[in-house]
């Protein structure tokens, strides 16, 4: 008997009990579909996080003033000593491997172009900002050092602001009013997309740091040379852990922090932070994969149950097959192939269902659909294994029947 013969027999048997076969496979369908969905959505989410890590800028550290220590001991960011231009210069000159460094001093306010107005984030930055964040100007140009020194009234706007104020028109060369002061738009930033927390990163206006400090962010709350947070990009050969320590040592000296006292600033590797989130995500993925493994087991028990019923119902058929020369192994194989076929059909339906649902979820969450052939192969292998494992016992029972008694059964 060839495998094809066995498959044809299995198909005939399954088709003759079509409704029951379909209902039996349901557990497998759900198990396989959830494997596909979870892996697809999980890895889609992960690749999204990875994209966000990349969007932060690579090889970058961020320095915040103020303590983020937990346990309620921190005094709050506003009360801490802000980072200053002098800190920036010190880090640039004394820490190894700094490629680019920029502050980002944030405020907010309305921006107006004719009748269009929009409330957005106003960020004072240094000319290195676009380099540090890997965030190029796609239209127009970057700030010049001259503009920086002269506190020029120039602005680079994010894509969202450009769309809100200019629709399809080119903003470069136009004049907009920022907090009622006219600014010349010199450039438009590339699209960055939402941040990992869902904030629209393209909804901002960049101003030269000096301009922002003097006029926009609000004099009253600002120390004379504060720079907000510092973004520092390092050379590829630099170990960010060493760089982080260097900056910490330097800032502790500059701020005269006693040994043993807590830092009143934070040096963060945001990429590391995001990676930790990715790990949480993959843990979740594994957990959910375990859940679908459980549904495969439950589905397998359903298959076993129905196969046992089938063996009982078809005892005479088994007797006849033995009488005409079927060996025990032939009978065993027939029922095993039947169970595996049932599971594989369930697996195929499950894959179709899973791919469909994953596509819908990914579309809703604006994630890429990630369905790799290896996941599909894994799901099919899991379905087939379920068939073999749970089909084995019924098949062995069928093969162990005595042909005389089987032929005599009603």
């Amino acid at each position, binding site marked *: 008997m060839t495998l094809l*013969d066995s498959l044809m027999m299995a198909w005939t048997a399954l088709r003759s009990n079509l409704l029951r076969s379909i209902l039996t496979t349901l557990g497998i369908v759900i198990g396989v579909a959830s494997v596909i969905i979870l892996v697809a959505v999980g890895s889609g989410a992960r690749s999204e996080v990875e994209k966000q890590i990349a969007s932060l800028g690579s090889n970058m550290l961020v320095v915040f003033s103020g303590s983020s220590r937990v346990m309620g001991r921190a005094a709050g960011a506003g009360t801490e000593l802000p980072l200053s231009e002098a800190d920036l210069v010190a880090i640039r000159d004394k820490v190894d491997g700094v490629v680019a460094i920029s502050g980002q001093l944030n405020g907010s306010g309305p921006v107006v172009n004719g009748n269009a107005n929009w409330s957005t984030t106003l960020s004072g930055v240094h000319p290195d900002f676009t380099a540090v964040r890997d965030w190029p100007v796609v239209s127009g140009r970057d700030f010049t050092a001259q503009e920086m020194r002269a506190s020029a009234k120039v602005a680079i706007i994010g894509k969202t602001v450009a769309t809100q104020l200019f629709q399809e028109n080119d903003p470069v060369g136009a004049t907009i009013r920022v907090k009622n002061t006219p600014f010349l738009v010199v450039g438009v930033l590339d699209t960055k997309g939402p941040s990992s927390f869902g904030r629209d990163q393209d909804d901002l206006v960049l101003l030269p740091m000096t301009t922002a400090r003097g006029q926009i962010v609000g004099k009253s709350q600002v120390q004379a040379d504060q720079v907000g947070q510092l973004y520092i990009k390092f050379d590829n050969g630099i170990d960010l852990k060493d760089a982080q320590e260097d900056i910490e040592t330097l800032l502790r000296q500059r701020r005269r922090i006693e040994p043993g006292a807590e830092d009143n600033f934070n040096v963060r590797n945001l990429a590391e932070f995001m990676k930790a989130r990715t790990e949480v995500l993959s843990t979740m993925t594994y957990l959910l994969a375990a859940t679908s493994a459980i549904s495969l087991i439950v589905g397998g028990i359903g298959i076993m149950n129905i196969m046992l019923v089938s063996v009982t119902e078809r005892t005479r058929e088994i007797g*006849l097959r033995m009488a*005409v020369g079927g060996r025990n192994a032939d009978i065993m194989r027939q029922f095993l192939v039947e169970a595996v076929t049932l599971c594989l059909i369930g697996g195929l339906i499950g894959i179709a269902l899973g791919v469909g649902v994953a596509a819908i979820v990914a579309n809703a969450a604006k994630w890429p659909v990630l369905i790799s052939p290896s996941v599909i192969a894994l799901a099919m292998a899991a379905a087939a294994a379920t068939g073999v494992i749970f089909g084995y016992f019924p098949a062995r029972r069928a093969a162990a029947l005595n042909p005389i008694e089987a032929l005599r059964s009603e």
Partner: protein
Amino acid sequence: MSASATVLAEHASRAGAVTQNVPTLIRAEAISKIYRMGDQTVRALDGVSLDIAKGDYVAIMGSSGSGKSTMMNLIGALDRPTSGRLWLDNRDIAHMSSDELADLRNATIGFVFQQFNLLARTPALNQVILPLLYARPRPADLEARARHRLEQVGLGQRLDHLPSQLSGGQQQRVAIARALVNNPKILLADEPTGALDTKTSEEIMTLFGDLNREGITVIIVTHEPDIAEHARRKIVFRDGQVVDDTERFPLRATGGGALS
């Protein structure tokens, strides 16, 4: 193989019921079959010895519990004797493994049952192909052979009919075609007309007669005297033993044991 052939030759020289110079196909030598049912033992066959010649037409009779079904199961290689020796086509089945028995059934014996035992929702052609699927080696011309046998039993026009679309007599013909498809030496029929009306029964018995004349050994297990009348030789069982063994006419060396 050669040892059993020698034994057979020995037996043939002092042959009892079987006409000399006709080869023996089935030889039972003091076979017993003992079943254990709970703590008591049932002696279904009790030291039965008999020979059945190649080409014979035999009716095995007896009431229920007489041992005729047990004898049929042994002749059909569905079971092994508890003691004694049983040769089918020169092969001693007493010590065969279940795989060897399966292969022997496949190659040597064609079964016909009272309840036909056709597969549900399976066309006639596939019913007949079934034994060929288990044949070793698997023949290449499955369909042609199955079609030929269905034509032989007069169902050449109903190859794709399902059992539910066939009459009882037609279903039994499909079953006979299935029994014949592997060119067996023995056609073993268990109450083949038990589920059929008189007219259809006669047709089926005529078919058996035709097949026997073509050379196949036919063994029918029945409790109906009318049916047994078609056979050349009648063996009656009671309490696990042969109580009557009559031949209606001598077995010819060529041709079959059917009545002309």
